[in-house]
Protein backbone atom coordinates (compact mmCIF):
# COMPACT_ATOMS: atom_id res chain seq x y z
CA UNK A 1 0.00 0.00 0.00
CA UNK A 2 2.80 2.33 0.90
CA UNK A 3 4.65 1.70 -2.37
CA UNK A 4 1.49 2.25 -4.37
CA UNK A 5 0.83 5.58 -2.70
CA UNK A 6 4.48 6.60 -3.20
CA UNK A 7 4.32 5.77 -6.90
CA UNK A 8 0.99 7.58 -7.21
CA UNK A 9 2.31 10.74 -5.57
CA UNK A 10 5.44 10.61 -7.71
CA UNK A 11 3.43 10.34 -10.93
CA UNK A 12 1.14 13.21 -9.96
CA UNK A 13 4.05 15.43 -9.00
CA UNK A 14 5.71 14.54 -12.30
CA UNK A 15 2.55 15.77 -14.01
CA UNK A 16 2.63 19.00 -11.97
CA UNK A 17 6.28 19.72 -12.57
CA UNK A 18 6.94 18.43 -16.08
CA UNK A 19 5.97 21.69 -17.83
CA UNK A 20 7.95 23.78 -15.35
CA UNK A 21 10.95 21.55 -15.82
CA UNK A 22 10.64 22.00 -19.58
CA UNK A 23 10.51 25.80 -19.21
CA UNK A 24 13.62 25.82 -17.06
CA UNK A 25 15.60 23.49 -19.30
CA UNK A 26 14.75 25.41 -22.45
CA UNK A 27 15.69 28.72 -20.88
CA UNK A 28 19.29 27.51 -21.27
CA UNK A 29 18.78 26.39 -24.85
CA UNK A 30 21.31 27.75 -27.32
CA UNK A 31 18.97 27.87 -30.28
CA UNK A 32 19.22 30.50 -32.97
CA UNK A 33 15.63 30.16 -33.98
CA UNK A 34 12.95 30.37 -31.37
CA UNK A 35 12.46 26.64 -31.42
CA UNK A 36 10.56 25.35 -28.46
CA UNK A 37 11.48 21.71 -28.41
CA UNK A 38 14.83 21.15 -30.09
CA UNK A 39 17.80 21.18 -27.79
CA UNK A 40 20.92 22.72 -29.31
CA UNK A 41 23.36 23.18 -26.50
CA UNK A 42 23.71 25.09 -23.26
CA UNK A 43 23.81 28.87 -23.16
CA UNK A 44 22.94 31.86 -21.06
CA UNK A 45 22.08 33.98 -24.05
CA UNK A 46 18.36 34.29 -23.35
CA UNK A 47 19.20 35.62 -19.91
CA UNK A 48 21.46 38.20 -21.50
CA UNK A 49 18.76 39.21 -23.98
CA UNK A 50 16.23 39.41 -21.19
CA UNK A 51 18.29 42.07 -19.46
CA UNK A 52 18.15 44.19 -22.59
CA UNK A 53 14.53 43.79 -23.60
CA UNK A 54 13.03 47.18 -22.85
CA UNK A 55 9.40 46.18 -23.45
CA UNK A 56 9.64 43.22 -21.16
CA UNK A 57 11.39 45.10 -18.38
CA UNK A 58 8.81 47.84 -18.68
CA UNK A 59 6.03 45.28 -18.32
CA UNK A 60 7.79 43.82 -15.30
CA UNK A 61 8.07 47.27 -13.75
CA UNK A 62 4.37 47.98 -14.33
CA UNK A 63 3.47 44.64 -12.78
CA UNK A 64 5.51 45.31 -9.66
CA UNK A 65 4.27 48.90 -9.24
CA UNK A 66 0.65 47.76 -9.55
CA UNK A 67 1.18 44.84 -7.19
CA UNK A 68 2.79 46.97 -4.48
CA UNK A 69 0.12 49.68 -4.63
CA UNK A 70 -2.73 47.17 -4.85
CA UNK A 71 -1.35 45.14 -1.94
CA UNK A 72 -0.84 48.15 0.33
CA UNK A 73 -4.16 49.86 -0.43
CA UNK A 74 -6.22 46.66 -0.29
CA UNK A 75 -4.55 45.67 2.98
CA UNK A 76 -5.35 49.00 4.65
CA UNK A 77 -8.90 49.17 3.29
CA UNK A 78 -9.51 45.48 3.89
CA UNK A 79 -8.23 45.47 7.45
CA UNK A 80 -10.38 48.47 8.34
CA UNK A 81 -13.30 46.75 6.64
CA UNK A 82 -12.77 43.52 8.55
CA UNK A 83 -12.81 45.44 11.85
CA UNK A 84 -15.95 47.28 10.79
CA UNK A 85 -17.71 44.15 9.59
CA UNK A 86 -16.79 42.40 12.82
CA UNK A 87 -18.70 45.06 14.75
CA UNK A 88 -21.83 44.81 12.61
CA UNK A 89 -25.03 43.05 13.52
CA UNK A 90 -25.84 39.72 11.92
CA UNK A 91 -28.02 41.04 9.13
CA UNK A 92 -25.62 43.78 8.01
CA UNK A 93 -22.70 41.39 8.25
CA UNK A 94 -24.37 38.87 6.01
CA UNK A 95 -25.20 41.49 3.41
CA UNK A 96 -21.69 42.90 3.30
CA UNK A 97 -20.14 39.44 3.17
CA UNK A 98 -22.34 38.49 0.24
CA UNK A 99 -20.99 41.43 -1.72
CA UNK A 100 -17.47 40.53 -0.58
CA UNK A 101 -17.88 37.00 -1.87
CA UNK A 102 -19.20 38.15 -5.20
CA UNK A 103 -15.85 38.67 -6.96
CA UNK A 104 -14.69 35.30 -5.66
CA UNK A 105 -17.61 33.21 -6.86
CA UNK A 106 -18.08 35.19 -10.03
CA UNK A 107 -16.05 33.95 -12.99
CA UNK A 108 -12.99 36.18 -13.37
CA UNK A 109 -13.92 37.03 -16.91
CA UNK A 110 -17.26 38.47 -15.78
CA UNK A 111 -15.56 40.62 -13.14
CA UNK A 112 -13.11 41.70 -15.85
CA UNK A 113 -15.70 42.76 -18.41
CA UNK A 114 -17.92 44.43 -15.81
CA UNK A 115 -15.01 46.57 -14.61
CA UNK A 116 -14.14 47.31 -18.20
CA UNK A 117 -17.67 48.57 -18.82
CA UNK A 118 -17.38 50.80 -15.75
CA UNK A 119 -14.02 52.26 -16.74
CA UNK A 120 -15.04 52.85 -20.34
CA UNK A 121 -18.22 54.51 -19.08
CA UNK A 122 -16.23 56.82 -16.77
CA UNK A 123 -13.50 57.47 -19.31
CA UNK A 124 -16.08 58.62 -21.83
CA UNK A 125 -17.70 60.84 -19.25
CA UNK A 126 -14.40 62.46 -18.42
CA UNK A 127 -13.43 63.27 -21.98
CA UNK A 128 -12.02 60.11 -23.49
CA UNK A 129 -9.10 59.37 -21.23
CA UNK A 130 -7.94 55.87 -21.99
CA UNK A 131 -7.54 52.91 -19.68
CA UNK A 132 -4.12 52.23 -18.24
CA UNK A 133 -2.18 52.09 -15.01
CA UNK A 134 -4.88 53.85 -13.05
CA UNK A 135 -7.71 51.54 -14.08
CA UNK A 136 -5.43 48.52 -13.58
CA UNK A 137 -4.64 49.61 -10.03
CA UNK A 138 -8.33 50.17 -9.24
CA UNK A 139 -9.23 46.76 -10.65
CA UNK A 140 -6.46 45.00 -8.77
CA UNK A 141 -7.42 46.60 -5.45
CA UNK A 142 -10.98 45.46 -6.07
CA UNK A 143 -10.21 41.80 -6.58
CA UNK A 144 -7.60 41.70 -3.80
CA UNK A 145 -9.88 43.20 -1.13
CA UNK A 146 -11.99 40.09 -0.43
CA UNK A 147 -8.90 37.97 0.13
CA UNK A 148 -7.50 40.47 2.64
CA UNK A 149 -10.80 40.58 4.52
CA UNK A 150 -11.07 36.80 4.58
CA UNK A 151 -7.61 36.45 6.07
CA UNK A 152 -8.09 39.17 8.71
CA UNK A 153 -11.61 38.18 9.81
CA UNK A 154 -10.68 34.84 11.45
CA UNK A 155 -7.95 36.54 13.52
CA UNK A 156 -10.47 39.11 14.75
CA UNK A 157 -12.89 36.38 15.69
CA UNK A 158 -10.21 34.47 17.58
CA UNK A 159 -9.22 37.56 19.53
CA UNK A 160 -10.67 38.01 22.99
CA UNK A 161 -12.90 41.06 22.62
CA UNK A 162 -12.33 42.00 26.26
CA UNK A 163 -8.67 42.71 25.58
CA UNK A 164 -9.57 45.96 23.87
CA UNK A 165 -11.85 47.01 26.72
CA UNK A 166 -9.21 46.03 29.27
CA UNK A 167 -6.65 48.23 27.55
CA UNK A 168 -9.09 51.13 27.71
CA UNK A 169 -9.83 50.48 31.36
CA UNK A 170 -6.08 50.70 31.96
CA UNK A 171 -6.10 54.17 30.47
CA UNK A 172 -5.49 53.67 26.76
CA UNK A 173 -7.31 55.91 24.34
CA UNK A 174 -9.32 53.94 21.77
CA UNK A 175 -6.74 54.69 19.09
CA UNK A 176 -3.84 53.70 21.31
CA UNK A 177 -5.67 50.57 22.42
CA UNK A 178 -6.15 49.64 18.79
CA UNK A 179 -2.49 50.03 17.92
CA UNK A 180 -1.17 48.46 21.13
CA UNK A 181 -3.59 45.57 21.51
CA UNK A 182 -5.74 44.81 18.50
CA UNK A 183 -3.22 45.35 15.70
CA UNK A 184 -0.52 43.02 17.10
CA UNK A 185 -3.19 40.34 17.65
CA UNK A 186 -4.43 40.38 14.08
CA UNK A 187 -1.03 41.05 12.47
CA UNK A 188 -0.52 37.49 11.15
CA UNK A 189 -3.81 37.76 9.26
CA UNK A 190 -2.88 41.15 7.85
CA UNK A 191 0.50 39.91 6.66
CA UNK A 192 -1.04 36.82 5.04
CA UNK A 193 -3.62 39.01 3.34
CA UNK A 194 -1.00 41.39 2.04
CA UNK A 195 1.19 38.61 0.66
CA UNK A 196 -1.85 37.04 -0.95
CA UNK A 197 -2.91 40.33 -2.52
CA UNK A 198 0.59 40.89 -3.84
CA UNK A 199 0.89 37.48 -5.45
CA UNK A 200 -2.66 37.55 -6.83
CA UNK A 201 -1.94 40.90 -8.40
CA UNK A 202 1.35 39.81 -9.96
CA UNK A 203 -0.23 36.73 -11.44
CA UNK A 204 -3.52 38.15 -12.65
CA UNK A 205 -4.14 37.99 -16.33
CA UNK A 206 -7.88 37.79 -17.00
CA UNK A 207 -9.02 40.93 -15.18
CA UNK A 208 -5.95 42.92 -16.26
CA UNK A 209 -6.53 41.90 -19.85
CA UNK A 210 -9.90 43.66 -19.90
CA UNK A 211 -8.93 46.72 -17.88
CA UNK A 212 -5.45 47.55 -19.15
CA UNK A 213 -6.10 49.48 -22.36
CA UNK A 214 -2.66 49.66 -23.94
CA UNK A 215 -0.64 49.34 -20.76
CA UNK A 216 1.26 46.09 -20.52
CA UNK A 217 1.79 43.98 -17.47
CA UNK A 218 3.90 40.86 -17.51
CA UNK A 219 1.02 38.41 -18.01
CA UNK A 220 -0.40 40.57 -20.79
CA UNK A 221 3.01 40.77 -22.41
CA UNK A 222 3.34 36.99 -22.22
CA UNK A 223 -0.11 36.60 -23.74
CA UNK A 224 0.72 38.87 -26.66
CA UNK A 225 3.80 36.74 -27.25
CA UNK A 226 1.93 33.44 -27.20
CA UNK A 227 -0.02 34.60 -30.19
CA UNK A 228 3.22 34.74 -32.15
CA UNK A 229 5.91 32.60 -30.61
CA UNK A 230 7.21 33.08 -27.15
CA UNK A 231 10.82 34.06 -27.19
CA UNK A 232 12.92 31.86 -24.90
CA UNK A 233 13.60 35.07 -23.00
CA UNK A 234 10.32 34.41 -21.29
CA UNK A 235 11.58 31.00 -20.22
CA UNK A 236 14.57 32.75 -18.70
CA UNK A 237 12.37 35.25 -16.89
CA UNK A 238 10.03 32.60 -15.54
CA UNK A 239 12.99 30.54 -14.37
CA UNK A 240 14.24 33.54 -12.42
CA UNK A 241 10.79 34.22 -10.96
CA UNK A 242 10.30 30.59 -10.09
CA UNK A 243 13.70 30.42 -8.41
CA UNK A 244 12.95 33.53 -6.34
CA UNK A 245 9.57 32.22 -5.24
CA UNK A 246 10.98 28.83 -4.35
CA UNK A 247 13.70 30.37 -2.18
CA UNK A 248 11.13 32.62 -0.47
CA UNK A 249 8.79 29.71 0.22
CA UNK A 250 11.58 27.56 1.58
CA UNK A 251 12.59 30.38 3.95
CA UNK A 252 8.99 30.83 5.11
CA UNK A 253 8.63 27.09 5.58
CA UNK A 254 11.84 26.78 7.56
CA UNK A 255 10.81 29.67 9.77
CA UNK A 256 7.46 28.07 10.42
CA UNK A 257 8.93 24.71 11.37
CA UNK A 258 11.42 26.52 13.61
CA UNK A 259 8.52 28.33 15.29
CA UNK A 260 6.70 25.05 15.70
CA UNK A 261 9.75 23.46 17.28
CA UNK A 262 10.17 26.40 19.64
CA UNK A 263 6.53 26.05 20.61
CA UNK A 264 6.91 22.34 21.25
CA UNK A 265 9.95 23.00 23.43
CA UNK A 266 8.01 25.57 25.41
CA UNK A 267 5.19 23.09 26.00
CA UNK A 268 7.66 20.44 27.11
CA UNK A 269 9.31 22.82 29.54
CA UNK A 270 6.02 23.92 31.04
Amino acid sequence: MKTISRIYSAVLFLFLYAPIFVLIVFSFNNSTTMSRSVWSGFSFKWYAQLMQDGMLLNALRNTLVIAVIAAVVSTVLGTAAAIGINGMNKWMKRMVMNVTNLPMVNPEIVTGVSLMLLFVFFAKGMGNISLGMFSLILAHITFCLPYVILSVMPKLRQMDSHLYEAAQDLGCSPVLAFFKVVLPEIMPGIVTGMIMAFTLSIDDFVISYFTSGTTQTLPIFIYSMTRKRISPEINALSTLLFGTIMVLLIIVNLRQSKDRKAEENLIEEA
Partner: protein
Amino acid sequence: MKAKSAAAPYAAWMSIFIIVPMILVVIFAFTDKSGAFTFKNIAEVGQYSNVFLRSIWLGALATVISLLLGYPLAYIISHISARRQGMMIMLVMLPMWMNFLLRTYAWMTLLEDNGIINSLLASFGLGKLHLINTQGAVVLGMVYNYIPYMILPLYSVLTKIDSSVIEAAQDLGANQMQVFSKVTFPMSMPGVISGITMVFVPAVSTFIISKMLGGGANLMIGDLIDMQFLGSAYNPNLGSAISLVLMVLILICMGIMNQFDEGENNGGGIMI
Protein backbone atom coordinates in the same frame (compact mmCIF):
# COMPACT_ATOMS: atom_id res chain seq x y z
CA MET B 1 -14.86 47.24 19.77
CA LYS B 2 -17.78 48.54 17.80
CA ALA B 3 -16.27 50.37 14.89
CA LYS B 4 -18.80 49.82 12.15
CA SER B 5 -17.70 53.02 10.45
CA ALA B 6 -14.28 51.47 9.72
CA ALA B 7 -16.01 49.52 6.97
CA ALA B 8 -17.43 52.63 5.33
CA PRO B 9 -14.60 53.24 2.82
CA TYR B 10 -14.74 49.59 1.88
CA ALA B 11 -18.51 49.67 1.45
CA ALA B 12 -18.16 52.70 -0.82
CA TRP B 13 -15.39 50.99 -2.79
CA MET B 14 -17.31 47.80 -3.33
CA SER B 15 -20.46 49.67 -4.31
CA ILE B 16 -18.56 51.52 -7.02
CA PHE B 17 -16.37 48.69 -8.25
CA ILE B 18 -18.52 45.60 -7.76
CA ILE B 19 -22.18 46.54 -7.61
CA VAL B 20 -22.23 49.34 -10.19
CA PRO B 21 -20.29 47.25 -12.76
CA MET B 22 -22.71 44.36 -12.24
CA ILE B 23 -25.61 46.70 -12.82
CA LEU B 24 -23.87 47.94 -15.97
CA VAL B 25 -23.61 44.36 -17.24
CA VAL B 26 -27.32 43.89 -16.69
CA ILE B 27 -28.13 47.22 -18.38
CA PHE B 28 -25.94 46.41 -21.38
CA ALA B 29 -27.41 42.93 -21.65
CA PHE B 30 -30.93 44.35 -21.97
CA THR B 31 -30.24 47.29 -24.29
CA ASP B 32 -29.23 47.66 -27.91
CA LYS B 33 -26.56 49.94 -29.35
CA SER B 34 -28.78 53.00 -29.13
CA GLY B 35 -29.59 52.26 -25.50
CA ALA B 36 -33.18 51.12 -26.00
CA PHE B 37 -34.53 48.21 -23.99
CA THR B 38 -34.48 44.88 -25.79
CA PHE B 39 -34.53 41.12 -25.23
CA LYS B 40 -32.68 40.56 -28.48
CA ASN B 41 -29.26 40.01 -26.88
CA ILE B 42 -30.53 37.40 -24.47
CA ALA B 43 -32.37 35.67 -27.30
CA GLU B 44 -29.21 35.73 -29.39
CA VAL B 45 -27.30 33.87 -26.68
CA GLY B 46 -29.44 30.87 -27.64
CA GLN B 47 -27.54 30.63 -30.92
CA TYR B 48 -24.44 29.75 -28.98
CA SER B 49 -25.97 26.90 -27.02
CA ASN B 50 -23.45 24.51 -28.57
CA VAL B 51 -20.61 26.61 -27.14
CA PHE B 52 -22.31 26.63 -23.75
CA LEU B 53 -22.82 22.87 -23.83
CA ARG B 54 -19.22 22.28 -24.86
CA SER B 55 -17.91 24.54 -22.08
CA ILE B 56 -20.03 22.84 -19.45
CA TRP B 57 -19.11 19.40 -20.72
CA LEU B 58 -15.36 20.08 -20.82
CA GLY B 59 -15.47 21.92 -17.49
CA ALA B 60 -17.37 19.08 -15.84
CA LEU B 61 -14.98 16.51 -17.30
CA ALA B 62 -11.98 18.45 -16.01
CA THR B 63 -13.63 18.74 -12.58
CA VAL B 64 -14.34 15.01 -12.35
CA ILE B 65 -10.82 14.10 -13.46
CA SER B 66 -9.35 16.57 -10.95
CA LEU B 67 -11.43 15.02 -8.19
CA LEU B 68 -10.47 11.46 -9.13
CA LEU B 69 -6.77 12.35 -9.38
CA GLY B 70 -6.65 14.84 -6.53
CA TYR B 71 -8.54 12.92 -3.85
CA PRO B 72 -6.00 10.09 -3.53
CA LEU B 73 -3.14 12.58 -3.31
CA ALA B 74 -4.91 14.68 -0.69
CA TYR B 75 -5.61 11.47 1.22
CA ILE B 76 -2.02 10.29 1.00
CA ILE B 77 -0.68 13.68 2.11
CA SER B 78 -3.06 13.86 5.06
CA HIS B 79 -1.76 10.51 6.32
CA ILE B 80 1.97 11.22 6.41
CA SER B 81 3.96 12.87 9.21
CA ALA B 82 3.13 16.50 9.93
CA ARG B 83 6.52 17.77 8.86
CA ARG B 84 6.36 16.09 5.47
CA GLN B 85 2.76 17.24 5.04
CA GLY B 86 3.86 20.87 5.03
CA MET B 87 6.52 20.07 2.48
CA MET B 88 4.13 18.17 0.18
CA ILE B 89 1.47 20.85 0.33
CA MET B 90 4.09 23.42 -0.55
CA LEU B 91 5.00 21.28 -3.55
CA VAL B 92 1.35 21.20 -4.61
CA MET B 93 1.10 24.98 -4.35
CA LEU B 94 4.44 25.85 -5.90
CA PRO B 95 3.37 25.48 -9.56
CA MET B 96 0.50 27.89 -8.89
CA TRP B 97 3.07 30.59 -8.27
CA MET B 98 4.20 30.43 -11.84
CA ASN B 99 2.06 32.35 -14.26
CA PHE B 100 -0.56 30.04 -15.71
CA LEU B 101 0.02 31.34 -19.23
CA LEU B 102 3.59 30.15 -19.05
CA ARG B 103 2.65 26.76 -17.69
CA THR B 104 0.03 26.34 -20.37
CA TYR B 105 2.55 27.47 -22.93
CA ALA B 106 4.95 24.80 -21.69
CA TRP B 107 2.26 22.22 -22.38
CA MET B 108 2.22 23.42 -25.97
CA THR B 109 5.91 22.54 -26.16
CA LEU B 110 5.16 19.12 -24.73
CA LEU B 111 2.12 18.31 -26.83
CA GLU B 112 3.07 19.66 -30.25
CA ASP B 113 3.22 17.34 -33.24
CA ASN B 114 7.01 17.65 -33.16
CA GLY B 115 7.01 18.26 -29.43
CA ILE B 116 8.70 16.55 -26.56
CA ILE B 117 6.13 13.82 -25.98
CA ASN B 118 6.12 12.86 -29.63
CA SER B 119 9.93 12.93 -29.74
CA LEU B 120 9.99 10.62 -26.76
CA LEU B 121 7.48 8.29 -28.40
CA ALA B 122 9.53 8.30 -31.59
CA SER B 123 12.70 7.41 -29.74
CA PHE B 124 10.92 4.34 -28.39
CA GLY B 125 9.92 3.50 -31.94
CA LEU B 126 6.28 4.38 -31.37
CA GLY B 127 4.11 6.33 -33.75
CA LYS B 128 3.18 9.97 -33.36
CA LEU B 129 0.06 11.07 -31.59
CA HIS B 130 -1.90 14.13 -32.50
CA LEU B 131 -2.31 15.78 -29.13
CA ILE B 132 -2.49 19.53 -29.47
CA ASN B 133 -5.56 21.41 -30.70
CA THR B 134 -7.88 18.70 -29.43
CA GLN B 135 -10.52 18.78 -26.73
CA GLY B 136 -8.38 16.34 -24.79
CA ALA B 137 -5.59 18.91 -24.67
CA VAL B 138 -8.01 21.55 -23.38
CA VAL B 139 -9.21 19.25 -20.60
CA LEU B 140 -5.61 18.40 -19.76
CA GLY B 141 -4.78 22.10 -19.51
CA MET B 142 -7.73 22.68 -17.19
CA VAL B 143 -6.89 19.72 -14.97
CA TYR B 144 -3.28 20.82 -14.83
CA ASN B 145 -4.06 24.42 -13.95
CA TYR B 146 -6.86 23.84 -11.46
CA ILE B 147 -6.02 20.58 -9.70
CA PRO B 148 -4.31 22.39 -6.79
CA TYR B 149 -7.66 24.08 -6.07
CA MET B 150 -9.10 20.58 -5.68
CA ILE B 151 -6.28 19.11 -3.60
CA LEU B 152 -6.00 21.97 -1.08
CA PRO B 153 -9.59 22.04 0.26
CA LEU B 154 -9.70 18.23 0.27
CA TYR B 155 -6.47 18.11 2.23
CA SER B 156 -7.63 20.69 4.75
CA VAL B 157 -10.81 18.71 5.44
CA LEU B 158 -9.10 15.33 5.53
CA THR B 159 -6.51 16.46 8.10
CA LYS B 160 -9.28 17.72 10.35
CA ILE B 161 -11.09 14.38 10.54
CA ASP B 162 -10.74 13.12 14.10
CA SER B 163 -8.79 9.86 13.99
CA SER B 164 -10.80 8.53 16.92
CA VAL B 165 -13.88 8.48 14.68
CA ILE B 166 -12.04 6.20 12.29
CA GLU B 167 -10.76 4.05 15.14
CA ALA B 168 -14.31 3.77 16.46
CA ALA B 169 -15.51 2.55 13.07
CA GLN B 170 -12.71 0.00 13.01
CA ASP B 171 -13.56 -1.14 16.55
CA LEU B 172 -17.12 -1.64 15.42
CA GLY B 173 -15.89 -4.01 12.75
CA ALA B 174 -15.70 -1.92 9.61
CA ASN B 175 -13.06 -2.96 7.11
CA GLN B 176 -10.88 -0.45 5.28
CA MET B 177 -13.31 -0.01 2.40
CA GLN B 178 -16.24 0.51 4.75
CA VAL B 179 -14.31 2.99 6.87
CA PHE B 180 -13.62 4.99 3.75
CA SER B 181 -17.08 4.84 2.20
CA LYS B 182 -19.05 5.27 5.45
CA VAL B 183 -16.82 7.59 7.47
CA THR B 184 -13.92 9.27 5.69
CA PHE B 185 -15.60 10.12 2.42
CA PRO B 186 -18.87 11.49 3.87
CA MET B 187 -16.88 13.54 6.37
CA SER B 188 -14.76 15.00 3.58
CA MET B 189 -17.87 16.14 1.68
CA PRO B 190 -17.40 19.88 2.45
CA GLY B 191 -13.94 19.68 0.91
CA VAL B 192 -15.28 17.80 -2.11
CA ILE B 193 -17.95 20.45 -2.63
CA SER B 194 -15.60 23.41 -2.36
CA GLY B 195 -13.04 21.61 -4.52
CA ILE B 196 -15.64 20.98 -7.22
CA THR B 197 -16.82 24.59 -7.26
CA MET B 198 -13.29 25.95 -7.20
CA VAL B 199 -12.33 23.89 -10.24
CA PHE B 200 -15.58 24.04 -12.16
CA VAL B 201 -16.09 27.82 -12.12
CA PRO B 202 -12.72 28.79 -13.61
CA ALA B 203 -12.74 25.78 -15.96
CA VAL B 204 -16.11 26.65 -17.47
CA SER B 205 -15.22 30.28 -17.96
CA THR B 206 -11.63 29.94 -19.20
CA PHE B 207 -10.71 31.58 -22.44
CA ILE B 208 -6.99 31.17 -22.63
CA ILE B 209 -6.50 27.45 -22.18
CA SER B 210 -8.95 26.74 -24.97
CA LYS B 211 -7.18 29.22 -27.21
CA MET B 212 -3.70 27.94 -26.54
CA LEU B 213 -4.30 24.20 -26.39
CA GLY B 214 -7.54 23.93 -28.33
CA GLY B 215 -6.26 25.81 -31.34
CA GLY B 216 -9.31 28.04 -31.66
CA ALA B 217 -11.47 25.23 -32.99
CA ASN B 218 -12.92 24.45 -29.59
CA LEU B 219 -14.45 27.79 -28.74
CA MET B 220 -15.65 28.19 -25.16
CA ILE B 221 -17.89 30.69 -23.38
CA GLY B 222 -14.88 32.73 -22.30
CA ASP B 223 -13.63 33.04 -25.88
CA LEU B 224 -17.08 34.13 -26.95
CA ILE B 225 -17.15 36.91 -24.33
CA ASP B 226 -13.63 37.98 -25.24
CA MET B 227 -14.61 38.22 -28.92
CA GLN B 228 -17.52 40.53 -28.11
CA PHE B 229 -15.48 42.92 -25.97
CA LEU B 230 -11.96 42.98 -27.37
CA GLY B 231 -12.13 40.78 -30.42
CA SER B 232 -13.36 40.81 -33.96
CA ALA B 233 -17.07 40.59 -33.21
CA TYR B 234 -17.21 43.79 -31.17
CA ASN B 235 -20.63 43.90 -29.52
CA PRO B 236 -20.53 44.65 -25.77
CA ASN B 237 -24.31 44.29 -25.52
CA LEU B 238 -24.21 40.69 -26.66
CA GLY B 239 -21.05 40.17 -24.61
CA SER B 240 -22.86 41.39 -21.51
CA ALA B 241 -25.79 39.10 -22.23
CA ILE B 242 -23.46 36.11 -22.52
CA SER B 243 -21.70 37.12 -19.29
CA LEU B 244 -25.03 37.43 -17.54
CA VAL B 245 -26.15 34.00 -18.70
CA LEU B 246 -22.81 32.52 -17.65
CA MET B 247 -23.14 34.11 -14.23
CA VAL B 248 -26.68 32.83 -13.71
CA LEU B 249 -25.62 29.39 -14.90
CA ILE B 250 -22.77 29.22 -12.40
CA LEU B 251 -25.00 30.47 -9.58
CA ILE B 252 -27.46 27.69 -10.38
CA CYS B 253 -24.68 25.09 -10.42
CA MET B 254 -23.39 26.33 -7.08
CA GLY B 255 -26.88 26.36 -5.63
CA ILE B 256 -27.27 22.72 -6.63
CA MET B 257 -23.88 21.85 -5.17
CA ASN B 258 -24.70 23.54 -1.89
CA GLN B 259 -27.78 21.32 -1.59
CA PHE B 260 -25.40 18.40 -1.07
CA ASP B 261 -23.50 20.20 1.62
CA GLU B 262 -25.34 19.85 4.89
CA GLY B 263 -24.31 22.28 7.58
CA GLU B 264 -22.69 25.54 6.67
CA ASN B 265 -19.01 26.24 6.29
CA ASN B 266 -17.70 23.57 8.59
CA GLY B 267 -14.09 23.92 7.73
CA GLY B 268 -14.09 23.00 4.06
CA GLY B 269 -13.64 26.60 3.28
CA ILE B 270 -11.68 28.32 0.60
CA MET B 271 -7.99 27.97 0.85
CA ILE B 272 -5.53 29.49 -1.54
